């Protein structure tokens, strides 16, 4: 089915994100009408591609801009600058107006309860989007019931219920069904399983994998849980303070992390092996301030490898052309002209 709508061909990335920028101005704390002094730089120049049929995981600390990026991708928030290209066409252009884009990209939110209208039955909630796009209501309801069955909830038992009568895991299944109601090609999952119990989380993850296979979907999977991201993603993207710092295949990023932040993140994962416990916190230094980020490389204040040049020059994102999109990183240690400055071994402590 998705092949019928494929315009750009298999080598065309499904979604290309170009120089996305979104700043939230802080209201001047002084008198009204004073111009805003500063802004929260939530998304500060983000570039990446989502390839067709893949699951791209996105990781990073709270406040790094993952959720804001997701919302901009869905156009729930408009970017200040930058563009989105979906299957070769710019979103919002005449070839791909916003309403049409919405049929192809959908989102599952973190809070399963607040994403459902408490006054609507489950089947009505799922059937809403198709009716908006012109599907007659009885067909929409039929589709809703089919989807419910597909996500593991028996329609006879669940269709007429209200959100508060369901458990968290069941609600999240409903949200997934709701996202699929428009038959999208891209599904963005913003911390979709983070609020669930572990056993339920596993079930929902397996459901997501099944659905991806069956409907030929592409996923953008945002999470702070590195184990889950590793399990489900083909490629992984690491964000820090509103910027992309590393991107690569799951194996590349987890086994051969290049960016110091990625390495620190991986080292901070609680170990599964009781004989090799994780003892110290690998990240030292003050947490970042998205209003006034550090000069040069934003991570340099907490970086174990920092040299003076890191505070003066911002790294450029470079990637090698290995298979599947390459393993890219934004770090001066990998840039041709500065790599030599880091040759001396030894890590810097910021404690």
């Amino acid at each position: 089915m998705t092949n019928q709508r494929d315009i750009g061909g298999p080598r065309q990335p499904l979604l290309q994100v170009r120089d996305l920028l979104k700043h939230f101005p802080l209201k001047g704390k002084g008198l009204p009408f004073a111009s805003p002094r500063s802004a929260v730089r939530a998304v500060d120049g983000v570039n990446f591609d989502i390839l067709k049929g893949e699951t791209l995981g996105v990781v990073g600390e709270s406040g790094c801009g993952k959720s804001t990026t997701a919302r901009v991708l869905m156009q729930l928030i408009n970017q200040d600058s930058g563009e989105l290209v979906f299957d070769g066409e710019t979103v919002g252009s005449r070839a791909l107006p916003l309403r049409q884009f919405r049929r192809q990209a959908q989102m599952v939110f973190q809070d399963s309860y607040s994403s459902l209208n408490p006054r609507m039955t489950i089947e009505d909630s799922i059937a809403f989007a198709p009716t908006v796009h012109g599907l007659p209501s009885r067909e929409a309801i039929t589709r809703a019931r089919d989807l419910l069955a597909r996500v593991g909830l028996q329609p006879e038992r669940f269709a007429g219920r209200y959100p508060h009568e369901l458990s968290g895991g069941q609600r999240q299944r409903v949200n997934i069904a709701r996202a699929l109601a428009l038959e999208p090609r891209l599904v963005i999952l913003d911390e979709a399983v983070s609020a669930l119990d572990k056993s339920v989380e596993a079930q929902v993850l397996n459901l997501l994998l099944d659905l991806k296979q069956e409907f030929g979907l592409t996923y953008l999977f945002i999470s702070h849980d590195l184990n889950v991201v590793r399990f489900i993603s083909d490629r992984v993207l690491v964000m820090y303070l509103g910027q992309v710092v590393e991107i690569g295949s799951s194996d590349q990023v987890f086994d051969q992390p290049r960016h110091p932040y990625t390495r620190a993140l991986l080292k901070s994962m609680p170990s599964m092996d009781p004989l090799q416990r994780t003892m110290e916190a690998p990240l030292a230094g003050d947490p970042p301030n998205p209003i006034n980020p550090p000069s040069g490389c934003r991570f340099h204040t907490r970086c174990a490898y920092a040299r003076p040049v890191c505070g003066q020059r911002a790294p450029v994102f470079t990637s090698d052309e290995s298979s599947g999109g390459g393993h890219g990183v934004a770090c001066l240690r990998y840039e041709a002209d500065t790599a030599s400055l880091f040759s001396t071994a030894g890590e810097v402590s910021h404690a």
Partner: protein
Amino acid sequence: MISYLIRRVLYAMPIMLGVAFLCFMLVHIAPGDPLVAILPPDASVDLQKQLMELYGFNRSYPEQFFSWVWRAMHGDLGSSIATGRPVAQEVFKAVGNTFMIAALATLIGFFFGSLFGFVAGYFRNSWVDKIASFISVVGVSVPHYWLGMVLVIIFSSQLMWLPATGAGPDGSAAWIWDFEHVKYLIMPAVTMSFIPMGIIARTVRALVADILSQEFVIGLKARGLGEFGVFRHVVKNCAPTAMAVMGLQLGYLLGGSILIETVFSWPGTGFLLNQAIFQRDLPLLQGTILVLALFFVSLNLLVDILQTVFDPRIERA
């Protein structure tokens, strides 16, 4: 915080201007000729024109509005058409009288309201709570002018303990704080206190019940804080909001005193308003409403500022 306070004060300015505008428009939406009250029916056209000129009714609306505001800012609210006396004088004399009963009513209402509210909140869901809550519902539901009449029936007509109307044996001009005069004060003030009592009782009950159900109270008790300590803690947390509500209630009473003052013939602003309406005395009407409304806005502002200053938990962007 200072910037918030400045912004709050600045924000009150357009509101006050809007209020003034509304007061001004009020009398001009009134049907009928503004001078009909004082003109003899067979007045000559010349006389009509003279009076229109004198009161400024022949000028354009914006002109009238701005000159009225300008004079008001200098304390000149015109002269009453009926009595000829300066409006400002009448109003400020009356405000003092109204303030007496309103302030007393607010204090009585605050005292009993807090009492009932506290008791209801402490013993929530018990029969004590239900009775105290019922009393507070009575407070907000009772038509206060009817209550005034009932009190007059009981205490003036049947028992003959208190005088029914007026502000003292020689009128309000000769007010002294002795029992002879205070007698006149009691019933209007008590009647007025019912509504604030009801509202404060409700507010306090909700606050107390909310605080007591919070987990940190259990934590305090676990650390050995006695009943009295908990009590003091609850009071400290309730006080700012309760006092804010009290302040607002005072504002409502000042502005809404007309019904009670009519029942008791108490010479306050409400009584003045009543006169102005029925005599179609437009300058008096305009002036009284303006003063009362501006009082209310200023009181709200004051309550807001004090709350911000005294309750650090309130976050002001």
